[in-house]
């Protein structure tokens, strides 16, 4: 779930329009719209304030997160390619018979 979806979900569950939520927070409704579409991401304290205005909160719980170095290396490798090279790579793979 993206931050925007979290905010939208909290707002809808609270039954507020974007304008109503913005009024409760004392800010422009365009800010809410930008957050909900993930165009702009609010900071953590702002996010909590927004959720609290809707009657929710994020429990500050830390859970272990392990990186997958192999996956990260594969992503890094892909990111170093241009979009065109990524397409070429896909088409090369499709041309090869399945093993």
């Amino acid at each position: 779930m993206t931050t925007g979806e979290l905010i939208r979900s909290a707002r809808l569950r609270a039954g507020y329009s974007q304008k109503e939520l913005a009024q409760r927070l004392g800010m422009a409704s365009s800010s809410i719209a930008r957050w909900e579409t993930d165009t702009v991401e609010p900071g953590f304290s702002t996010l909590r304030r927004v959720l609290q205005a809707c009657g929710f909160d994020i429990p500050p719980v830390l859970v272990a997160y392990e990186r997958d170095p192999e996956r990260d290396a594969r992503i890094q490798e892909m990111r170093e390619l241009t979009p065109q090279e990524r397409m070429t790579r896909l088409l090369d793979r499709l041309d090869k018979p399945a093993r």
Partner: protein
Amino acid sequence: MSDPRFDPYEILQELGAVKTGFVLVGGLARVIHGSDETTRGLDLAPSLNKESLRRLGVALDKLQARRVDGQPLDLSDLDPQREPVIELQSDAGEIKIVLEPAGTRGYEDLRIRANREPLGQGVRPAVASPGDLVRMMEALDRQPDPLVLETMRRVLELDRRLTIER
């Protein structure tokens, strides 16, 4: 049996030639952003503007696209609620017309954050943003491939970091 033909360049060239409005979504869009997955189809969210749909129809005719369910293809009467996805088979491969990709409000919603990506051979389609692609996967009725979803989340994270550092 050999796999069906898939030539995304041919499809994109025909779509580009008629100047129809669409945003590329699905597996191919994710590959363009850096997902290391394999896909044999092209998914697009079309503009629902009448003239744009007419042009899309012209391109699909040229590609000899027909519905996989055997029904006639009629782009003049589309309804995302009634039929959210239209599956087509064309001479250049599978095409899915996704009127309202999961978790989004369709073309008008996606095009704001989409980028035109140069793919070579004269094609430069609008491709849905990594954030929207993640959102679509998370909103699917079925469970998305966790590896692909994690990869796209990581791509999104790296993209955001790049934006901040710029």
